[in-house]
């Protein structure tokens, strides 16, 4: 991918991820819904050669924190750690079959969730809806669809 296409895809993906994250759903669905920003960013990460992946993750996470009214840095930290997982297995991810990719997405989402919850617990105690623990699972399930749709968007 050329640098121009790379940046354009990142812009499109970020906008879609922010819009999808802001769509109001029934409370139960909303809590277990996938970490949209992470799975959209994973798609960009596996195709991009950009050297500043962590800085971009930081900025994207901060944008999400601002738009969602969360603690500034909360999603940013989680997104950096989630991206680190994917970057570690990037070469293998690129050539893996869809099920293996789903497992990588699940692990990254789990790391993202743990980071979110550690910050949440540190700030306001163990006071969160346990249903959120299903979010990595929904990210796992939704990955093939997201990948298919983003591939269409990419072309």
């Amino acid at each position, binding site marked *: 991918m050329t640098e121009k296409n790379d940046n354009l895809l990142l812009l499109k993906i970020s906008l879609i991820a922010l819009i999808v994250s*802001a769509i*109001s759903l029934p409370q139960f669905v*909303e809590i277990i819904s996938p970490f949209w920003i992470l799975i959209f960013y994973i798609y960009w990460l596996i195709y991009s050669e950009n050297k500043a992946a*962590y*800085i971009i993750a930081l900025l994207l996470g901060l944008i999400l924190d601002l738009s*969602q*009214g969360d603690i*500034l840095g909360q999603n940013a930290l989680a997104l*950096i750690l989630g991206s680190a997982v994917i970057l570690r297995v990037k070469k293998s991810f690129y050539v893996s079959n869809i099920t293996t990719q789903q497992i990588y997405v699940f692990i990254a989402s789990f790391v993202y969730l743990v980071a979110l919850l550690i910050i949440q617990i540190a700030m306001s105690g163990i006071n969160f809806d346990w249903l959120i623990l299903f979010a990595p699972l929904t990210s796992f399930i939704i990955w093939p669809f997201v990948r298919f749709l983003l591939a269409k968007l990419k072309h």
Partner: protein
Amino acid sequence: MRLLKLLLPLLIAMALIVLDARFSYLNSFRSSLSTLFTPIYFVVDLPSHIVEWVSDKGSEKAKLISENEQLRNEMIELKVKLQTYNNLVLENQKINLMLNSSYALPNYKAKLAQIKSISQTRLKKQIVINKGSNDGIRKLQVALSSDGVVGQVVQTNPFYSTVRLVNDPTLHVPVKSLKNGYRGITKGVATSKGGMIVEFLPIDSSVNIGDIFVTSGIGSMYPSGYPVGRVVEFEKYANTEFLSIKLEPIVDMNQVEYMLIISKK
């Protein structure tokens, strides 16, 4: 070098978390940047705008006439009720003056706001409304519905504001029992059942299932006397000084469409 590339953003994120959560240094930065998200909010809210527009255009004349007539009747009825209310307010003010009570109702001005279909509820219980700083909405103003307290404004931008709901774990509301005036402080519970707990209510307080807790007005943040929650469960544990009380919010947050954002005159 590779580790540094990871560590630097991590450290920045951690520093921001501490600065934002423990201090208020980033409040103005946050509120000015949140203006940039107005187009995203607008796009997300677009379908409901379209539905509203289509529904407005599609209303038949006869329906409007019938609604108009019904509203006129309701207005007359409310005017009659208002007379009684005015008398009660006057009477209340006199009693408050006589008792020199801290529960005296101050004068508030209110702005009507509508809830927008924008999500902010994965880790927090908050909603976005269609009034922002351009409409005079400010942080810490209180949101009330026709049934009781909804929450408190925690963030504003020129066009939208975020209201943290009364059942969010980070929001505390001073309350008193409507039955006997015992005072405590509510705190939200973030389980799937939701609800709130009342803290600091002495163990010897008389509480029953179904009792209503209303705002006590202490601290002057919330006006006194607005319903907050209904007791659904209570326990008296040994070796504790306080009762354990669970409330369900009086306001059904899923049903609220409009709310009043109030501020002192």
